[in-house]
């Protein structure tokens, strides 16, 4: 089956440090991965998309890597702030790159302490 796994344990870090979240997938290689942020009681909000031929993507304090050999994506938030506290979801395109159907991981909750 098309599985995608994130660390279900919450990640607690100190303000100013870099947060690193992991996303692993099995069984095949997706055409792209997306990362979303979700706050309690709200829908997910898109952050970054990285394609299979890209190794790294950046946006402000965010960086995503995509290692198709390890079947893994890492999501980094540098100079973290308490406002970054949320659940972060990794999603991939499954076996199709042209429908947009997303398969999500279970999410990792990040808590940034001041």
């Amino acid at each position, binding site marked *: 089956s098309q599985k995608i796994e994130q660390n279900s344990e919450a990640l607690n870090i100190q303000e100013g440090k870099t947060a690193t979240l992991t996303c692993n997938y099995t069984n095949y290689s997706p055409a*792209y991965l997306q990362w*979303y942020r979700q706050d309690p009681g709200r*829908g*997910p909000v898109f952050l970054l*998309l990285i394609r299979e031929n890209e190794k790294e993507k950046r946006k402000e304090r965010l960086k995503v890597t995509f290692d198709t050999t390890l079947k893994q994506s890492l999501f980094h938030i540098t100079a973290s702030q308490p406002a970054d506290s949320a659940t972060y*979801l990794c999603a991939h395109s499954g076996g199709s*790159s042209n*429908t*947009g*159907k997303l398969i999500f991981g279970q999410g990792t909750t990040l808590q940034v302490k001041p």
Partner: protein
Amino acid sequence: GAGVSQTPSNKVTEKGKYVELRCDPISGHTALYWYRQSLGQGPEFLIYFQGTGAADDSGLPNDRFFAVRPEGSVSTLKIQRTERGDSAVYLCASSLSPGAYEQYFGPGTRLTVT
């Protein structure tokens, strides 16, 4: 402009009843998705529309679930003979086009079946 809206925000119904959940996507977005999210889990794909047609309904759990998008904009997810296991947050998302595009999510409808 307006984002994706969903109504109602909360729905409590008795086991065995019929419910309809509505989604208003962003104007001009041709692709529309329904997901279901249980507590502590990531969203789970249900169905995808491209225009008026359901292009992929492989995520619908059984024939009690049905969705329509008759004019290519608003979509309704219909659940017949609801069961307690149907309790979840139902999320709708839209994107400009299918494929590797960011998805814009609505706030969700929290369905509780008693």
